[in-house]
């Protein structure tokens, strides 16, 4: 079973080293466990088009049967690279998206399709706010993102 993720990730890597949709760039993929991607949101005034948002992908050996862990990173070196404001993104970078949960995940998804989903989730956002209870969640949460039981109560945003 250990080999499951390797081959698939190599193929994915080969593909995204080629052409990617506008606004999505591969930053680094040093191994087959952690990748970094950058996102830009092109047409939403909430997110200036020159701001980059850094996504960190962590793959388990069961990928793609298991969803990867995807979080936003805050880069202290560059103030423009903060965690994007969104009612489903906590200020510690954890994203509440059904796609990344065991129930919503399908092994057909890949790094590119996840990036596109998150990009469009941001692009269509109109609310300049964090999720309710953000401060409390960020302070108290110790669980890995996959172990958090999010309530996907709001499919509209």
């Amino acid at each position, binding site marked *: 079973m250990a080999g499951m993720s390797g*081959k698939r990730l190599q193929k*994915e890597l080969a593909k995204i080293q080629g052409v990617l949709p506008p606004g999505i760039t591969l930053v680094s993929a040093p191994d087959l466990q952690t990748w970094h991607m950058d996102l830009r949101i092109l047409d939403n005034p909430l997110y200036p088009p020159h701001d980059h948002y850094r996504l960190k992908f962590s793959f388990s050996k*069961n990928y*793609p*049967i*298991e969803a990867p862990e995807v979080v936003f990173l805050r880069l202290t070196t560059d103030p423009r690279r903060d965690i994007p404001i969104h009612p489903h993104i906590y200020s510690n970078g954890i994203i509440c998206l059904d796609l990344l949960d065991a129930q919503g995940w399908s*092994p057909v998804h890949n790094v590119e399709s996840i990036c596109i989903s998150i990009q469009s989730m941001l692009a269509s956002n109109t609310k300049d706010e964090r999720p309710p209870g953000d401060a409390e969640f960020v302070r108290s949460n110790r669980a890995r993102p996959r172990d958090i039981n999010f309530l996907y109560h709001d499919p509209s945003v």
Partner: protein
Amino acid sequence: MPIATRKRKADSTTASADATSEPQRKLTKVSKALQKDSISQEQAALPATPQTLTSDKGMDSDDDFNSVASSMDLGEEMSSSVDFGAGESDVDIDDDYQDDGAFDATAKDLAPKRKHFEVEFKVYSPQDIQSQQDTQIAEVANLLEQPSEATAILLRHTRWNKERLIEQYMDNQEQMLDKAGLGQEINQNPPRVVVKNGFTCDICCEDGPGLETFAMNCNHRFCTDCYRQYLTQKIKDEGEAARIKCPGDGCRKIIDAKSLDLLVPNELTDRYHQLLMRTYVDDKESLKWCPAPNCVYAVECGVKKRDLNKIVPTVHCECKQSFCFGCTLPDHQPCPCVLVKRWIKKCEDDSETANWISANTKECPKCNSTIEKNGGCNHMTCRKCKNEFCWMCMGLWSEHGTSWYNCNRFEERSGTDARDAQAKSRQSLERYLHYYNRYANHEQSARLDKDIFHKTERKMTLLQSTSGMSWIEVQFMEAASQALQQCRQTLKWTYAFAYYLARNNQTEIFEDNQKDLEMAVENLSEMFEKPTDQLAGLKVEMMDKTTYCMRRRVILLDDTAKNLKEETWKFNVELR
């Protein structure tokens, strides 16, 4: 085993068939019942010990019965068989006699009436549950002309409500299939593994020649390796079974048992079927797993949620566990589930604290905040409501005039009122503690009884060697010990029950019954303290006391249950 295992109505044809085919057997049955009755009239009053029908045949016959009575409404059948009244219907099958297999009108007359506090229930083994599912699936599959795998998915989708399924299916077949996660042509397309050249699996990106692939009728095709891994993950790690969807993005097709068997190794299919069984029991209101650790049995009982204020449905599993079918807590007769929940909650946050409060604090006469005075003068100002009062007389401080710090205003009205109010709240607290202490005492004693039980076993061995009694002759000790535990359990809950009971004439009878049982229990309990060498001589006395205990318990439970059913009890809280 004849078909009419559990006949509800004396069906003349089957009855006569019985009689002709097995006259001999019936005779022994009756005499056995008679024997049982005469040997232990007292035992008959004990809560019924159910017998599982472990043979598949027994199950089948039961289902046969149901399908004969009404072709497809098992649910209906079960709810109509719920019967709280003891003798007024023809349904009273005493569980004691279930193991006797075919018993008919003659045997039925001999069976004692069901007590008010007893409910009808059945214990099922995993095999029983499996065949129960199979029968229902086969029945509906026939009707809908769908393969059994698809029928199983449909039935699970409607939570085993056959009527609803059939109705909706007949209404709009396509919509129903779609909603349940099935496609149209499942009939024509049996699941199979296909080797496809030039195929790239979307999961592993494998595209070599000779790749084995699989797809359900949604045509989301993946290689079998990936499919297998996906299913393994779902079953093993996520514990899913009944609602595993196609791995394709957004696809709602549910994987069926046949496809699954095709794809995954045997040990996983076992787990899969285990999980399916769990959802079956969880889905049905009339079935519950026995809550005892490691117990594999499930219990069927027709008591509905809405009836729980009128009956306490205690059931007894094959594994000896007695539990309430309503809330799956250990047997808590005679106290109804709602009160049990309330009581447990109250005890969790109140009891010990309440003790301390009672001893050390007073309440503000205005807002009833609890105040502990830890020093200083008698002039109190409530932090909460700013009420100023005197700690001694509880009267308004303003009425104290100039006699500050020296309370001599004993006759002031406001003081009397405040003291009255306080006395009232103190009284309610003391009332609670009264019941709680007795409740806790029996709980504690029941725990000690467990020790007694183990000591009993040792005593029994000792008794065998010293008195020359045989093993069977010392069984009275175990019977006594068990009776003790059971009675304590009942007593414990009578106190929680009494706490919520509003006082009227009925409560006096209840309290008398309670007192009698309490005395009987303490008397019996005392006997266990006697030295072992005397025990042999006390055998008869001990048996008498055991019997008496059990009889008192039945009287108390029966009376309480009867009043509960007739809703003659008045409670000081709402049963919600």
